[in-house]
């Protein structure tokens, strides 16, 4: 068992749930509210120094009773230690959780992927958009267990919506604001740019 678990219990008390060991890796469950504090502590405390966020992912089990888990895989490059932090969420309830982008910049796209596939909202994320599916994808979040394998719409409707999507819509607003394709953007993205959400308008220089 990773010694970080005892240190976590000593510091955060009841916010730390059960801990277990699986295939040599330590898994510790953390309450949703304490997540950001715990992660900041794990990153910044000299004895912990989990400076590398390997991955963020989520798991929904086929067993309807089991909660949905968000998994953070941490590694300390200096101490050569791994720690897996899990947060349990109720699939039927509120799927909001604090973002860790401010701690690890690399969490940006990882959290976007989890949002895209599972519909988990990361509070404080700078640019929470879909990353694998296109922005106007309307069928839901594909890796949820209630999502049918072939999607919710008929194939013809899927083809129609896919063909109606703008290939430019896969870029961030920052990239789009400097692109020549600005005039061809969908109206809602132009509006978001006009409001100054991200990036700058082509003619504002």
């Amino acid at each position, binding site marked *: 068992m990773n010694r970080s678990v005892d240190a976590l219990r000593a510091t955060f008390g009841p916010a730390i749930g059960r801990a277990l060991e699986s295939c040599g890796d330590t898994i510790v469950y953390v309450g949703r509210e304490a997540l950001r504090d715990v992660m900041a502590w794990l990153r910044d405390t000299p004895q912990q120094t989990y400076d590398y966020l390997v991955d963020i992912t989520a798991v929904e089990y086929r067993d309807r009773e089991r909660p949905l888990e968000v998994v953070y895989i941490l590694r300390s490059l200096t101490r050569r230690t791994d720690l897996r932090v899990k947060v349990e969420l109720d699939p039927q309830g509120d799927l909001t959780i604090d973002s860790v982008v401010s701690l690890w910049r690399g969490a940006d796209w990882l959290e976007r992927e989890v949002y895209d596939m599972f519909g988990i909202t990361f509070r404080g994320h700078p640019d929470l958009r879909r990353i694998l599916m296109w922005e106007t994808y309307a069928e839901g979040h594909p890796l949820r267990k209630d999502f049918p394998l072939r999607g919710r719409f008929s194939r013809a409707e899927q*083809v129609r*919506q*896919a063909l109606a999507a703008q290939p430019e819509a896969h870029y961030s607003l920052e990239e789009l604001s400097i692109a020549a394709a600005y005039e061809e953007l969908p109206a809602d993205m132009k509006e978001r740019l006009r409001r100054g959400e991200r990036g700058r308008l082509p003619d504002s220089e």
Partner: protein
Amino acid sequence: MKRVIESKEVAGQSPNYLLAKLQDLVDWAVNSSRANSLWPMPFGTACCAIEFMATAASRYDFARFGMERQAFSPRQADVLICAGRLPFKLAPVIRRIYDQMPQPKWVISMGACASTGGIFDNYAMVQGIDTIVPVDVYVPGCPPRPEGLLYGVLLLHKKIKGESLFDRVPRRDEQPLDDRGLRLPPEQIDEISEPFGNSIHQFRSA
């Protein structure tokens, strides 16, 4: 010319016969030029693209069939070779590339995934690129061997050589998307995309 008209073979034929022969000659010249210098636009998205590269490289070498110059710009391409699976997110991209290619243009669908969706009968994958662009030659295989792709190219040669500039029906018109934004009627797309093989045991509502 005078000698040809007075020759034994032509004499006594209707004037249309001569015109038809002339048309054949023009068709032969045009089609041979087209078929023997196809410039491919590779659209490689998966493992089929590896076989495509093998086909282009020295051992199989499709330059032997006039495909010396690969056009990585649709503006200078004749044949779009879709090598690999096509997710819905790439559907507008391949459609735009196809629209950007000048006429005359042809499409080869290489491999099981491009032709039918293959094993990927799921929410993310186009079930056959013929729901998006018209396809001339389907090459089966997962992935097809280079010989398979070359055979498909030769079939395309055959098809091109059978075309005629003088057809009453203009066969090579642009085929824009209809007002619904689709290439085919929705029922037809649904029919093309029907599950088959092992995937018949899965259901939309599952």
